[in-house]
């Protein structure tokens, strides 16, 4: 009788341990399991137009911003701050792949707006002393953190500018 009681106790202890271990595994991998079973399998079998929130990426998302500025300096300042923000964001999240941080539209800005790469380097020199973003080719710091890939080299009113982090080069590319 005593033997059976000891056996039953062991039985429960082992089952309990296995449940704890099993739950720990599930909890640790909960997000991936949900995504695998629900987002991958279920939605494939029953395709829906609506993608549930938890199936959407939880990494930072590309923001689409309209730039409003009363003058040239204000426009450059806003532009530069978004570049800086992208630089810090990708560092914070340790982004390992190319990532588009912002899509800026120079929406309501002076008609004669013309931002060049030199304007940007001057801003980083004057306001950040080339400590954060460096642009060696324009006498600002010791590295070239910016790749300027803008048609005709100038950003004009109405331009849409993409601020993209290039993981391989560890640089920010400005595309327009």
């Amino acid at each position, binding site marked *: 009788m005593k033997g059976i009681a000891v056996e039953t106790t062991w039985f429960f202890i082992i089952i309990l341990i296995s449940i704890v271990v099993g739950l720990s595994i599930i909890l640790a991998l909960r997000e991936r399991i949900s995504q695998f079973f629900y987002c991958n399998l279920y939605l494939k079998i029953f395709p829906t137009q609506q993608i549930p929130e938890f199936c959407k990426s939880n990494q930072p998302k590309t923001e689409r911003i309209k730039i409003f500025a009363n003058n040239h300096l204000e426009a450059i300042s806003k532009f530069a701050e978004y570049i800086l923000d992208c630089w810090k964001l990708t560092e914070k999240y340790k982004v390992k792949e190319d990532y588009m941080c912002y899509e800026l539209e120079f929406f309501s800005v002076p008609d004669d707006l013309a931002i060049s790469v030199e304007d940007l380097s001057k801003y980083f020199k004057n306001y950040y002393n080339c400590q954060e973003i460096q642009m060696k080719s324009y006498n600002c710091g010791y590295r070239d953190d910016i790749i300027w890939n803008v*048609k005709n080299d100038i950003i004009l009113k109405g331009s849409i500018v993409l601020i993209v982090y290039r993981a391989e080069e560890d640089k920010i590319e400005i595309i327009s």
Partner: protein
Amino acid sequence: MKGIAINIVFLFIMGLIATIIVASIYLAIKNFVIDYFSEKPQTKKFKELEVKYLEYQISESFLMELGKQCARESIDNYACLNGYVVCYYIYSKHSFQNLAIPYVDEFSYKNKTILIDTRNFDNNKNNTLIVFDCNQKTVYFLN
């Protein structure tokens, strides 16, 4: 003694498997219930088609980057379950004649090789659709 050890291991594994199955079913049902009863906006899909009108001459890099972004966002958000995603409609004041877009290009994202196929891109026109085909893992420029 050996028999007892085998029993213990057997019990442990069975308990583990049963727990994982039950918990997975619970999670799947829970997700289904959350999804079913959650308030759904009128607009569907993870991303509305974005229409961009451009007054100035754009660059090849700009269009190619939007193509890459279309693929990245579609993959990140499981939008690929729907087969293909129409991301952007670009139309410009100017034609795309100045654009020397590569015939076929490729890039890598999340260990997947994504192709950018511009064979159907007509640069005499001034508009294009940017579409990501999830099955082919290819971004198409259509006009």
